């Protein structure tokens, strides 16, 4: 019998991986992630490494870039390596299959939407698998942090964004955001975001509403889990008054966050941020002598790999397939011109119980850099906190 919360290093031959035992004497200053009296706690099994550091860390790069899970395999984490390889294989298979369909059909109009989504999913799965493989090998066993155990009822932010787009004169934006998560299980998510370039003829307004499903409930929680699933409906208006047009976007998207432990049980402190959907975009042109309206569909896809930092911050590296917005898609010379969306790095951190900071950088056909202060109001726990009784 192991004391709760204390992981012991044992060899695989000695351990029974699925064994659970009742916890004993829990210190009163227990923190989230540690056990509560009477709860069953699994014994942590640390496998025997096949090679010592730094070989697994190096193997995560070479041949790990091609053979995902190489580093974790040398660390003796066979199951994790298998899952990473499976993800890599699935990603490659989806990529090649969709590429073959696109090639054979010449990106036929009736097939291209679905096929492009599979292609993005394939490439993203490969990318996420690679990042997971690197993280799993390099990060400490417990990760660098975990999901925030509380979420705010209301979050508002005020910030500044710099946009470097060679096609437009605007650069400076005042940004605001208001997010509300109303109710529990499932919560109603309402969002409002704006960006204003007052003297440069550009304004963006976005409204969104979603239903936060499968979110962790405090009653069930021992360790915080940031996973959720959220079908979302959004509408945005982007005014380019000085350029003579306005775009409106109506979008339907399924967004999800999956903590890494859900897929890779011994990889902690990371998450996958995913999204897929469809949008319709209308362009209203209003220039001297011409008033016209055009419509175009838009494939939505987002794939991000994030890490939690302590219990107060998170960082996400992502690919987003959107071609609208400030970042647009990547411009490049060659065969894939215009197809890819943009990349981004997003981070947020709490600096006090009520205040936090958000920062984001995007590169597509423009650079976007943003920083905002966040005020959180009306927090509720999503994981059981020290001293809180089980409901």
């Amino acid at each position, binding site marked *: 019998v192991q004391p709760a919360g204390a992981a012991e290093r044992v060899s695989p031959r000695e351990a029974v991986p699925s064994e659970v035992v009742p916890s004993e004497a829990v210190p009163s200053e227990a923190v989230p992630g540690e056990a509560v009296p009477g709860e069953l706690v699994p014994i942590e099994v640390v496998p025997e490494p096949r090679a010592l550091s730094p070989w697994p860390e190096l193997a995560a790069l070479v041949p790990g870039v091609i053979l995902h899970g190489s580093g974790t395999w040398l660390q003796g984490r066979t199951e994790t390596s298998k899952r990473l390889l499976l993800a890599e294989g699935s990603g490659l298979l989806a990529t090649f299959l969709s590429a073959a369909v696109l090639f054979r059909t010449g990106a*036929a109009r009736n097939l291209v*939407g679905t096929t492009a989504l599979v292609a993005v999913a394939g490439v993203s799965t490969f990318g996420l698998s690679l990042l997971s493989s690197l993280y799993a090998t390099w990060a400490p066993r417990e990760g660098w942090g975990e999901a925030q155990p509380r979420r705010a009822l209301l979050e508002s932010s005020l910030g500044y964004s710099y946009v470097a*787009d060679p096609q437009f004169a605007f650069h400076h934006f005042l940004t605001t955001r208001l997010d509300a998560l109303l109710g529990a299980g499932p919560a109603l998510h309402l969002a409002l975001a704006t960006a204003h370039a007052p003297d440069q003829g550009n304004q963006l307004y976005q409204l969104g509403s979603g239903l936060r499903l499968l979110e962790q409930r405090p009653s069930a929680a021992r360790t915080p889990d940031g996973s959720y699933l959220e079908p979302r409906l959004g509408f945005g208006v982007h005014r380019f008054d000085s350029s*003579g047009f306005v775009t409106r976007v109506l979008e339907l998207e399924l967004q999800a966050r999956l903590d890494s432990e859900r897929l890779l049980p011994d990889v902690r402190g990371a998450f996958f941020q995913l999204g897929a959907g469809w949008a319709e975009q209308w362009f209203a042109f209003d*220039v001297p002598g*011409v*008033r*016209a309206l055009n419509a175009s569909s838009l494939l939505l896809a987002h794939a991000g790999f994030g890490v939690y930092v302590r219990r107060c911050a998170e960082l996400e590296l992502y690919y987003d397939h959107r*071609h609208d917005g400030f970042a647009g898609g990547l411009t490049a010379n060659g065969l894939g011109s215009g197809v890819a969306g943009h990349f981004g790095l997003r981070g947020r951190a709490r600096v006090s119980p009520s205040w936090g900071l958000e920062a984001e950088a995007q590169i597509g056909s423009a650079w976007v850099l943003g920083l905002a202060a966040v005020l959180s109001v009306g927090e509720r726990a999503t994981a059981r906190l020290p001293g809180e009784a089980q409901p």
Partner: protein
Amino acid sequence: MKARRALPLLLACALGACLRPSEERAHQDAEIGVAETAELRLEVEGGQAVVRALSADEISLWASAPRLRLQLGYAVPPPAELQLEVANCMPGAELTDLGAAEQADLGAAEPGVTVLSSERAAGGACRFQLALPGAARELRLELAPPDTARPSHFRFALLSDVQEAVSRVQDIFARLNREPDVDFLLGAGDLTERGTREQLERFQRELQSLRIPYYTTLGNHELGHHPTLFHDYFGRGSQSFEYRGVRFSLIDSASATVDPIVRGWLDDWLEQSAQQLHVVAMHIPPLDPIGVRNGAFASRSEAAALLARLAEGGVDLTLYGHIHSYYRFDNAGIPAFISGGGGAIPERFDQIGRHFLVVDADPEARQLSVRVVRVD
């Protein structure tokens, strides 16, 4: 070697240079049509011809517009004779000494350039043997078919996206040759598969069987080998010319964007054509009619801004390639056609196959009408 080239490229991307992938080509455009030796300086107005060879007594050009204006400046007394060869020349093109013509209009007859001989060689090249006036240090010549400066009805064709189907392109050229009264063929890019020197030369060889000249912009497939190799063979990626009262602007959108330098040129061309019919052609369309495919500009905001500018500038017709099918739609109220029927991997289930467009232009009635000609 590749790694050594890749590192600066990555650093440049990190610093934002990737935001303008076609900037280098815009700078290259500005250098087309200008060449100099110790004895002679040649400038082709608007960069509308590639200078293939230049010496004191021999000039060889590839025309990328139907009407060429050349300015020759000699640092020394010019040679008695000059041989001028212009490939991709308009049938019936005549050479005029603009300087002498202006002098004659003023009543001060001075000896001008004398055309000793002229011939239209096989493959669409015009050859002129010229006798130059001994005292002239500056010569201004125009090469154009007569009466093409005045607005009048004519036809032109559009073909794009030949790529790997170059071995079958003769079928298309044969069909084009049977099409009556077509003055020239416009290209919306992707004439080659990878834009290599061999492929560009091959395409020019194939063009020799076409009885009309071919003026084209480049496509993303021309960027596979070297971003500016296309310019050595076909001239500017972005250029504008006027023919029979209609303005044509070819825009380099091969990187799914239009460089701000080219946007600046386009503003000038739109201003010049305010009272004219104006046809704009580019390879990648700003917006794909099938939006989820996004065979279009990388940034939809840029696409809309460009279309708004074209609409404001009174553009009458937009022609695109890139998508290997046929689409007819409108963008910002401007009639738009995508015609990628040159034979490259076709879009399936579209019932189109290889094709080209024929456009009837009537500048006096301010009318343009477009029809599809199927090859298969």
